[in-house]
């Protein structure tokens, strides 16, 4: 028995010696800093992680584009959506904070991979080039949405926490110049895709040369550089990597269609479910927001054609203020059809039509009307009847509603065309020009000394 004591004493001494080791149990289902991204095998999951970050900002990206404008009516109980629906947006809105933090999370992850990649030896040059270009594509996308949503925002280019805590706003123009730099570089380095490729999931998920050009087409459209917008849209359309679906209803109900240029995917295993800002939940399960009467009327018009499938009606829902209509583009709660499409080929036709109309190229095979009629034909709707430039531009605006409703474009479209005041004042008595930008989230203003007193005007 004294041996027992001796044994314990020896054990005790052994602990003394080995205590440092004893106190470092490894996290099991998490990885610590020094275990990540040091070998080539880590590059692929880290890259996927970056796309996942993009997915993280996608639903609030849609919310910014659709809920800030005249598409929705608040029908639920959550304050965030009440503010958006009744146009009384405040700097403490949860969606605002979420878009901001997820956008910068995407930027952080992209910066992180861009910084780490050169340090990993034995990664092939091709991989390094491709992944770096993808990161710049993603970072560009985040900044593009950021600048168009918030105006002037801080420009973060490293992962250094010390530096990043106090970065001040950069002018919107500087941010957009940075976006252009990223996207140009991405366009150069990204791999191209052969025409007629059937890998719709890969083509829609990962950035490639064509999707970079599609982004540039949108970029130039926003910049009112009509010639460049037309040129890039044409390149995308002519590449034949992406082709229009025959039936519009597939755009509503299916994931990764042939025309999907950038789409964030969910599988059943990571279904957005009832998570905060989950679009399926907001539109369908909770009916937190419903389509506004006027967007429903637009979508049901003859010009819209089969695009009326964007919304559906159920008289069971007719309670109180509810108009009974539901947005269908974000799938159903229990099925794997909740993807968010950030860009698809139809937008290229719309960009080119608008760019051509702005350059007064209205008719003929390379005229704006022809591009619009491509979409009308697919929607089994009558051809565009307009003849003068103003009417064609107006037709483009309407066509964007029919085609891209609830895909996160409306508010940005009204902003860049200067139609925002006219449209929104008619829509809501609460509208004011303040809402041409989202507020900087309240928390950011409090936490970042350089943003003190730098809240967007009116908030």
């Amino acid at each position, binding site marked *: 028995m004294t041996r027992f004591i001796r044994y314990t004493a020896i054990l005790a001494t052994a602990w003394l010696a080995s205590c440092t080791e004893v106190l470092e149990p490894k996290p099991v*289902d998490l990885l610590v800093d020094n275990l990540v991204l040091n070998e080539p095998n880590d590059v692929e999951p880290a890259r996927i992680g970056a796309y996942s970050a993009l997915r993280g900002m996608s639903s609030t990206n849609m919310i910014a584009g659709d809920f800030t404008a005249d598409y929705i009516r608040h029908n639920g109980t959550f304050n965030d959506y009440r503010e958006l629906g009744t146009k009384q947006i405040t700097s403490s809105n949860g969606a605002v904070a979420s878009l901001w933090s997820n956008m910068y999370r995407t930027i952080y992850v992209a910066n992180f991979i861009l910084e780490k990649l050169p340090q990993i030896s034995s990664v092939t040059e091709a991989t390094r080039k491709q992944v770096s270009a993808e990161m710049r594509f993603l970072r560009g996308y985040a900044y593009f949405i950021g600048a168009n949503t918030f105006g002037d925002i801080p420009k973060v280019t490293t992962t250094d926490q010390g530096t990043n805590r106090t970065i001040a706003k950069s002018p919107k123009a500087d941010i957009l110049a940075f976006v252009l730099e990223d996207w140009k570089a991405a366009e150069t380095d990204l791999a191209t895709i052969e025409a007629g490729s059937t890998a719709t999931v890969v083509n829609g998920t990962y950035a490639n040369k064509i999707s970079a050009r599609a982004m540039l087409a949108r970029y130039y459209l926003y910049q009112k550089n009509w010639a460049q917008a037309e040129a890039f849209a044409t390149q995308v359309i002519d590449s034949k990597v992406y082709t229009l679906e025959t039936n519009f209803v597939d755009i509503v109900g299916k994931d990764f269609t042939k025309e999907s240029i950038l789409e964030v995917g969910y599988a059943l295993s990571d279904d957005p479910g009832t998570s905060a800002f989950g679009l399926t939940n907001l539109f369908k399960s909770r009916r937190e927001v419903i389509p506004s009467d006027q967007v429903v009327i637009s979508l049901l018009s003859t010009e819209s054609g089969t695009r009326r499938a964007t919304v559906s009606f159920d008289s069971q829902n007719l309670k109180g203020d509810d108009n009974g209509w539901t947005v269908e583009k974000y799938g159903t709660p229990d099925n794997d059809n909740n993807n968010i499409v950030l860009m698809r080929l139809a937008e290229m036709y719309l960009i080119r039509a608008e760019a051509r109309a702005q350059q007064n190229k209205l008719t003929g095979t390379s005229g704006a009307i022809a591009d619009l009629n491509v979409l009308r034909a697919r929607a089994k709707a009558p051809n565009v009847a307009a003849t003068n430039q103003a009417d064609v531009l107006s037709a483009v605006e309407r066509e964007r509603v029919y085609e891209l409703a609830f895909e996160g474009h409306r508010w940005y479209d009204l902003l860049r065309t200067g139609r925002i005041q006219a449209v929104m004042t008619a829509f809501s008595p609460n509208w004011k020009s303040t809402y041409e930008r989202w507020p900087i989230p309240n928390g950011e203003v409090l936490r970042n000394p350089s943003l003190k007193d730098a809240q967007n005007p009116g908030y």
Partner: protein
Amino acid sequence: MRRSLLLGCLLTALVWASAIAQDRQVTGKVTSADDGSALPGVSIQLKGSTRGTQSDANGAYTLSIPTSGGTLVFSFIGTTTQEVEIGNRSTVDVRLVNDARALNEVVVVGYGTQQRRDLTGSQVTVKGDDIARLPVQTFETALQGRTPGVQITQGSGRLGSALQIRVRGAASISAGNEPLYVLDGIPITSQDVNTTDNELFSPLADIDPNDIESIEILKDASASAIYGSRASNGVVLVTTKRGKVGRTNVTIGYYTGVSKPTRLRKFLNAAQYKELFSEAATNAGYDPAEEFEGSGLDLNSTADVNWSDQAFQTGSVNQANFGISGGNEKTRFNLSGALNKQIGIVIANEFKRNNIRLNLDHNISKKFTIGTSLALTRTINRKTPGDNAFSNPVQLNALPPIQPIYDPANPTQFNRQTLYYNNLIEVSNANNYANTYRMFGNLFGSYQVIPGLTFRSEYGFDFLNLQEELYQGRLTEDGSPTGYGYQAQSRAMNWTTNNTLSYLRTIGNHNIDLLAGITYQEQNLQTVSTEGRGFPNDKFKKIASAARILSGSSTATGYSILSYVARANYKYRDRYLLGLSGRIDGSSRFGANNRYGFFPSVSAGWVLNEEQFIKDLVPVLSLLKLRASYGVTGNSEIGNFDSRGLYSAIPYADQAGIQPTQIANPDLRWEKSSQFDLGLEFGFRNNRVNGQIDFYDKTTNDLLLNVPQPGINGFSTIARNIGSLRNRGIEFSLTSQNLIGAFRWSTNFNISFNRNKVLRLDVSPIRPTARFLSYVTEGQPLGIFYGKKYLGADPANGDALYEGPDGKPTNDYSSAPDLYVGNPNPDFTGGLTNNFSYKGFDLNVLLQFVSGNDIYNVAGLFQSVNGDYFDNQTVDQMKRWQKPGDVTDVPQARLYEGNGTSVSSRWVQDGSFLRVKTVSLGYNVPGRLMRKVFAQSARIYVSALNLFTFTNYTGYDPEVSTQYANSSTQTANVALGHDFYTPPQARTLTVGINLGF
């Protein structure tokens, strides 16, 4: 198995009892030493035998003893036990001395024991006997009202619900605030590991209150610093009963009872509902019938249902337990077990516990002792859904009284067209079981190296295996359309070894007591879970039958602590006391730059009544002790990997991705509390009146906060040690034996005042959720209510009014500034116990009080909003404004218009209460009657728990803290005094019997 065991014991007892041989008689009289009165009911036992009796009404007794004589042991409640050698006397009269409040009593302290008289720290003791027979699920509940300086709140009436225990106030904002629990020297898992909801249940329910010998709550730094980085929130030492030398005692007990909710809330009946909502619709310009119909309601319905009562039922409690203990000089044992079954006051809520424990001690030699404790428990809790679930039965109170409960046409027989989910369907179509299998054990050896020097080695474990089994049938809301099943297994394992050397020596007037040791603890928590949908029918409930497996997961986490402890106590001439203690803790949770922390304490005491000048001055003083202590303790209840830079797997559409999820902070460490304590203990007239008063000041620095940082960093928070808060207060307790003698009456009163204040936050004020009023900001107590101040209805037009920016009422909610509108922290808390005994009868009454705290009823946003939406309303909403000139605090009813429905002080109320916590009346059946049935003693009793509650709170029960708040530790710490469809406590009446053989 248990039954045959009991039977066996009974038989053994019978054999012993009949073996008594009549030798000679001894008689005598027992009187009180204080006033000479006769003492009836005194237990008289022949030492080392089974022979015993009780004194009669005149204090007289007769007992047959062997001719050789022996020693008689006289014991009686409230007096010191006395042993008298018989010799060859035939009359033995005894005067029993009033118990000197157990001054020489040995109390358990960290890693050892000490005489109460020599304590220089502040700790509170509760005896196991005081709490053993209360119909509670978990022993902490039974401590309420008995523990000065320790506020114990049971937030909900769900069976087994976890309690909130604050030893000298909340010392943390984001880290844990619950004390460390140490069972027979081994720290145990005391926090729920469930994976299904925010409602926390107490893993301490696995300890049978009957097994507890004593509970010590260590409050000041001097008492607790030896537990180092885990002592800031206090330490609860639970000691279980061990066998004693002497005859084998067999006890069995049984109690049974019924329970009802303490308080219920009143809601509108059908007529009132129609009146209020028709008015609301009309006022808002709608046609009432149309609006009723729009929400699926029928204005002409003849139904009149009291939905809120449907959530409750008459519950029941039943417990049977046994204990066998005894032993000789060589080996002592205590074997016990119990079966406890309770049916809750909330529908479909059940709790069952079976447990068995064996504590064994054996002396290998005079110097070498070994021992073990082993306890096995199975606890089954059929849980009801959490506060914030539509399936929470209490939420039925939102259903309109004009909708019937039943619908014969529906396959469930229930009306499923109700405004909200008719969750009565769940009673037979859904279940959520938490099955815990728990094993506590320890093994120790103690060896006396040289006289005074003892080495003790202890090895202990605590295995907790929680199996959660949830099934939602196809007719339920969450299980529709094909059923939903969830299964999880969680295993928390704790391993501890303590190795200590202690040295005790008296040299002349000097007493020294030294302790040094090393301890190591490792905890590991593993969880596997899976869920599925698509069951062929509701009879198939296991995931194997699910057509679709929705998810499956396994995770693991853990931590380790390596520590060195030391303590030195020095006493000079029995009156000057000095204590030093320290602990070095190394924890895997701390950052690489701060892996080890040192936690010292110093204390001193002066036993003034030993001084001649005091003796001369105040001769009636039996105790006067002044003590002071100062020390530093820590709180390491932070996440296991908070200090590390982390990456997580991010599945992206079925592909494996990795994303950084946390930034490293290698400087991260424990929260640090510095506590000063000054105490005075006193006793008069041989301690018939005694008490103590303590003043303390506990300042906690380095508060761990998830510091929000600009989102542009990619992460919006980082864990850092900043911030500080302070608790200071006064505790006072007084015990008095008012009457001694045949009729005995003693009183204990305790009261505590604690003031909490956040001194420094360094981050923006914390608002856990927008729906709550809780707030954390510098200069205010934790969780102060901060929001718009509601001022009632405008007499002119019925608009809801708030205090505006200029201090004048305004109907513009958004312009009203946030103000401090309440404080959930009580001004004082305490208890008053009165014990009476006469002959065989004893009566115990415990009152508990909490005063000055506010409650915010979050559910008011739905149930008390003058008919804003079709949720049924509380009856007070009938006082709504109706015409100009009406002065009321309920605004005009306006359907959908949000008149006074936003978060404000409208639902803040005073939550003070006085509760008749326990009343227990017992009768000890006289020994001579009992011997006829071969029993030594018998006590029958009736008792009541939460008998009456006096409060101005109009909600369910004023002792409330919704676990809806538990989305994070921080929210749970901060969102104090919030009520949200929380079930009230149970009022339980029991009747029971205890037999001793």
